[in-house]
């Protein structure tokens, strides 16, 4: 049975190896030229992010004044977005470990997102990035609640998936936090109940700190502005959630992204792994602002090929990766954000019903 969309005739093993070697060279070039400028980039993003966060919090402290509310909420939303996308996600991938700066390191970073960094690193860096779009192995393929490919068994509850996919967006951080607990791994016997309870407690501790800060302490400190401050914080978290949901869903779920079967990845070589990463991801195009606010995940394909290269370099290598794909006839999915977004929703709708609407 073929996956969606139809698999292309595979490259001959020799051609695949050539393709892989060319990608290895791109990686080696970036690794060899990482330096001062990249370090300055990430430190600038950190400074801007913390400045915006501090500014946003201050403005929301006097948010009885409507302009202060608007400015504060906007700054906090951007700060939280930067923190999750360009900082948290990428630093936790180890993209900046090469600097040897303990303040910007995958082992020490904790992000302003509900799920604890350790839990995220396991489900995201390990499971999702290794088994990208392999049905039955990549839990991110529908996050265990959405049906995103015809190989996934249909269940009547999937009729409601357009609804809950939409409802998930504004509370995305809660969805991810619960998802990272891997309750399904306990029922499958892959994780002990004891380990699971430990992780629940770990999450609960972080959740209390996160919620106390945004929904209790800052509003209380705002005194007469308590209510608008609370509203501002809720809005900032909500908008950040919707944005993160959009970026992540557009990275893997547009219609022209392939899924794979477990048989296909048996004895997969590094070159074949590269091929799967390209076909299992989708880019979206945008200017500098969109790039930074999405954590450079508009370059999802480049990110999946080289998850540990500094994100500020993806834009630079994207044209080369794309030319390489053209040369070897490997599909390279890209388009404007709105089109990827529409295509992603099309897929959610199509797979809500048991019939394969493509045939």
């Amino acid at each position, binding site marked *: 049975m073929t996956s969606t969309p139809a698999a292309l005739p595979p490259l001959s093993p020799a051609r695949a190896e050539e393709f892989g070697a060319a990608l290895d060279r791109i990686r080696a070039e970036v690794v060899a030229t990482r330096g001062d400028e990249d370090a300055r980039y990430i430190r600038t993003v950190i400074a801007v992010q913390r400045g915006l966060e501090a500014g946003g919090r201050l403005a929301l402290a006097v948010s009885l004044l409507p302009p202060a509310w608007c400015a504060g909420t906007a700054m906090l939303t951007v700060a939280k977005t930067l923190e999750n996308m360009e900082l948290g996600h990428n630093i936790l991938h180890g993209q900046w470990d090469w600097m*040897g700066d303990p303040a910007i390191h995958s082992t020490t970073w*904790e992000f302003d997102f509900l799920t604890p960094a350790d839990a995220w690193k396991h489900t995201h*860096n390990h499971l999702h990035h*290794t088994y990208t779009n392999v049905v039955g192995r990549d839990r991110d393929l529908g996050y265990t609640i959405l049906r995103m490919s015809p190989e996934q068994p249909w269940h009547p509850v999937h009729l409601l998936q357009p609804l809950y996919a939409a409802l998930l967006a504004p509370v995305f951080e809660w969805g991810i936090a619960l998802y990272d607990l891997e309750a399904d791994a306990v029922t499958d016997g892959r994780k002990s109940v004891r380990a699971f309870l430990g992780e629940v407690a770990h999450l609960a501790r972080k959740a209390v700190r996160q919620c106390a800060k945004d929904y209790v302490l800052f509003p209380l400190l705002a005194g007469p502005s308590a209510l608008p401050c609370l509203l501002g914080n809720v809005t900032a978290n909500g908008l950040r959630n919707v944005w993160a949901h959009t970026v992540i869903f557009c990275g893997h779920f547009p219609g022209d992204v392939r899924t794979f079967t477990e048989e296909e990845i048996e004895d997969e070589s590094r070159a074949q792994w590269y091929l799967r990463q390209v076909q299992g991801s989708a880019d979206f195009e945008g200017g500098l602002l969109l790039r930074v606010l999405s954590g450079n995940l508009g370059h999802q394909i480049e990110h999946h090929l080289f998850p540990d290269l500094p994100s500020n370099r993806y834009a630079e290598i994207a044209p080369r990766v794309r030319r390489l794909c053209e040369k070897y006839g490997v599909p390279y999915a890209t388009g404007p954000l709105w089109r990827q977004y529409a295509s992603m929703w099309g897929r959610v709708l199509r797979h809500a019903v048991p019939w394969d609407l493509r045939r």
Partner: protein
Amino acid sequence: MPVFLPATPAGPLAERITGRLARALLAAAGRLTSPLTPDDYLGLIDPLLSARHPAGRVTAVRPEGPGAVTLVIRPGRGWAGHRAGQYLPVGVELDGVRHWRTYSLTSPPEDGTRSRVLTVTVKEDPRGAVSPHLVHRTSPGTVLRLGPAQGEFVLPEPSPARMLMVTAGSGITPVMGMLRTLARRPPPARTDVLLLHSAPGPGDCLFRAELTGLARRAPWLRLHLHYTRSAGRLTAEHVGRLCPDWAARETWACGPAGLLDALRARWDAAGAARRLHVEHFRLLPLAPLAPAADGGGRVRFERSGVEAESAASVPLLHTGEAAGAVLPYGCRRGICFGCLAPLLHGRVRDLRTGEVHGEPGELIQTCVNGAAGPLALDL
């Protein structure tokens, strides 16, 4: 010429926010900055304000003869002080990458009366990565990261009555810290310190003016300068001749491994091993930069107590697991960083790029790095 900067505003402020009330306030503020700490914000205003990642600012750079400088450093919050003779790790950024090297403190410990400054004296290793940068390209205002002072090569309190110091080259630095400490407050009346210091010649003898001046003024110090260009290398026999009662003295020695090994053997033979304290500037012999292609090496997993031979092309993770160690792992292909482990010593080769790298403390992805010579991991 030494260049002095006016006191930066960060210095006094950094000192002011160390009180108990300030600490309580910062702890409370931590609820608001979570998951970051207030230090992460303070450090953006001035790196010296962050106690989480302690830093210091170079306030003066003083030449100390050919290829050597003394860096005067004002430490920020988080610097917990030191004892005379200790060293500290200094973090230096070169092309975006932080390198750590250890340097002996040549300044006496804080005694509460002076302002907080420390000094280290760096002798350039022309083929090295960090010391030429510190010696030639470091100017006042540079921020350096500081690790905590450490080491057991220290001057005891109260100081012993009879002491012998044997030093060679830049090995004088920890002893200089001790001598300056003794010089600050006159030691007990019958104290007698003999310093045997070896240098190539008078022109490249670190601290020569200060040492001879101090020996003239201080009744407790006797100085013998040994110049290798005219008198050959300083040996254990020289030491025995210059200081006949060596076995009875509390002794501190710092210099090349050959000298230290010879002293160790002599003191052992005389049953005086307990009185000899040595400091090595290079902890372990470095692996050659380009080991043979089939190099590999012996790998030690320190915590598990497992040791195994590892071929150059085999990931360290495989070697460890095959030898029975239980190690952290993730994707096993260099993607997830779930297997990171600190390198204790030795070097590794990135099996994807062939690049040989590794410094003590560097976190290594064990699933995509092989051994480039003997090494140890903190696993």
